[in-house]
């Protein structure tokens, strides 16, 4: 090892120093605001942390508390609901939309631009907009329902609908970004595959299922992991669309909304840290499983 290090020439070392210098601003920020915070969070999760005074070590009490707290399981269940349905819908819709945008239709650029609009809109604006669209008394969706002779639905207050309403907004806001990624993936597929398939007599459906989808699997895999991590951390739309002091909040809270409440409303920073660490572990486990499973369905083109 030592011998190897001596072998670096002065120029190489200088180059490395320059490189380090360039990544320093990013790294320093990352170390202070992410790495330090992450390890302090682990420390907090084993402590009782109030507002004043030093954290007091209490071992696994916070974790035991989580496993006996019914609210924690409600939050976990809701989060898994959002993730399972959210990821599926995001992937399905983004592939379908990307596929139709990949064809030579008139005004294709216009459609591509319009489909991308939700991705560049602030989540706050999306949340507030949909809260009014879905409003029980004044919302345009219920207005339309009533016009066609149906009963209005309390989308954001009923146990049966509130999670679906949030899911709708979540998927609507996420799909556009993944459409762009899928589209890029589709355009990278060599057209010779399609030509060969057509020569063999494949129809539109066969082209889609036998050529596009298999060759898109690496991109689908990437999108699944990214969207899953994003949705597991869902917070903003719930926070924006549901008032805290209503029954709907109790139906719809996610892990992160529960974390927020524990840390910043109830002042239970230690317990909140434990909840966030558990969420981190869940994300890691699911991602590792996905990484393992990918060899069974992801086809790399080489």
């Amino acid at each position, binding site marked *: 090892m030592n011998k190897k290090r001596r072998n670096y020439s002065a120029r190489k070392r200088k180059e490395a120093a320059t490189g380090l210098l360039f990544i320093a601003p990013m790294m320093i920020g990352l170390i202070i605001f992410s790495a330090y915070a992450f390890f302090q969070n682990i420390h907090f999760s084993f402590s009782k942390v109030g*507002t*004043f005074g030093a954290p007091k070590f209490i071992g696994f009490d916070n974790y035991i508390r989580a496993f006996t707290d019914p609210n924690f399981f409600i939050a976990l269940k809701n989060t898994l609901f959002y993730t399972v349905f959210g990821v599926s819908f995001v992937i399905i819709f983004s592939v379908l939309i990307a596929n139709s945008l990949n064809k030579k239709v008139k005004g294709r650029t216009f459609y591509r631009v319009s489909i991308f609009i939700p991705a560049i809109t602030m989540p706050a604006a999306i949340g507030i907009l949909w809260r009014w669209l879905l*409003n029980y*008394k004044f919302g345009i969706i219920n207005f339309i329902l009533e016009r066609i002779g149906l009963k209005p639905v309390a989308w*954001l207050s*009923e146990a049966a609908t509130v999670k679906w309403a949030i899911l709708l907004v979540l998927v609507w806001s996420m799909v556009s970004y993944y459409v762009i990624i899928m589209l890029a993936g589709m355009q990278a597929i060599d057209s010779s595959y399609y030509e060969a398939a057509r020569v063999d007599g494949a129809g539109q459906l066969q082209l889609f299922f036998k050529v596009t989808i298999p060759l898109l699997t690496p991109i689908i895999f990437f999108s699944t992991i990214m969207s899953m991590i994003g949705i597991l951390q869902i917070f903003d739309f719930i926070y924006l669309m549901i008032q805290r002091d*209503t029954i709907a909040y109790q139906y719809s809270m996610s892990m992160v909304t529960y974390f927020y409440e524990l840390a910043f*409303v109830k*002042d239970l920073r230690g317990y909140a840290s434990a909840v966030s660490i558990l969420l981190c572990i869940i994300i890691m486990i699911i991602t590792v499983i996905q990484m393992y499973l990918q060899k069974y369905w992801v086809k790399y083109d080489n």
Partner: protein
Amino acid sequence: MKKIMLFVAVCSLMLSLIGCGKQNEVANISLMMWDEAQSPVIQQSIDKFNEKNEGKIVASIELVPWDSYWTKLDASLETKESADVMWMNVYLPKYASAEVVKPLDEYIEKDKLDLSQYIEGRVNAYNLDGKQYALPKGLDTVFVAYNKEMFDRYDVEYPQEGWTWDDMRTIAGQLRDKISEAGGAEYPIVMELDDQPSWMNFVVQNGGNYISEDGKTTGMGMDESVEAIQNMVDLMNEELMAPYTVLSETKGTDLFISGQGGMVFIGSWKASVLENSTLGADGNIGLIQMPALNGSNSSVLGGLGYCLSASSKHPDEAWELIKYITSEESLYNEAVNGIDIPAHAKAQEGYVKNFKNLDAQVILDASVTGFPYQSNGNFEWTSYVNDAVQKALSQIAPVKETLVEGATQAQEVLDELYK
């Protein structure tokens, strides 16, 4: 040449030292607050204060937005680098028990400050275990607003001062019948679902409580509290009040100012919203005290106060500032500028002048019989009872069972805190 340079250097050094010495005589103190809208008016008071204490004290405002106010306050108090004076609300007990804010009793005694010049309920709100931790700045009251135009249209008489809960039910019943006859879609009564402008009032009026005076027991499982919440559920079931689904998605105030509600329980912090609404501008909003339930129409009294940091390096000067910004002169200035209802009785008349469309005297009168917002400064237990109230109001579970269960869970947390 060198010697001259040295001389100049030494001289300038000495001058700067003298400068330092002089600066040390002036006490720099700061006031931490969150409301940007109020800061220009409070700055006027600060300017006057600085003028009066020229050469002795220089006070300045440290504006921290609400979103980060409490986080920043906690961190700065912990490191003993906080502002000298700060805005305080119901969170006070948390800071008082950590002894990071200073009791003001010795100063009050020394200066023989007369606390009776302030509204009693607001003084009491900052008195814990016989110690006065803050002087009150302003106050928030709760009262009823009604839509005169709707009452006229449906030919129902306006509520009269001195009315009771039963009178309210009768009036709301008349409205309901006339509305349904005319095929209208309005609601006789609307309200907000959070505690301060709505259910906390009725719970306390009915003899229950949210938290006991010593802050150790919650009374939300008491029969009186259960009955008060049941009363509200009855209002909804008899269609005297808008159903829960409507109230949970659209705030009561918004329903009211858009003409959807006949009456609304409402807080003074919404007074300017009422004043500036179309309904208000047309002179169609009437104000009246809360109806009396069980002989009491006492309503929640909120508001802010000024606290003194225990780690302040200039506590005497900071006290002078607190005393000045809660004086009649300063608070009158806040009142005429319409930023707050003064907690100082004599300064209140300035407030009424701000309103052209509302009878603001009602807002002030509500403070006389008000009780302080019930809180012990801890928010670990509150969600259990608050969530139970929402379950009860939305009727997904029986009222009594839900409230008793929520109160029991909250009590477990409280017992753990005070064991």
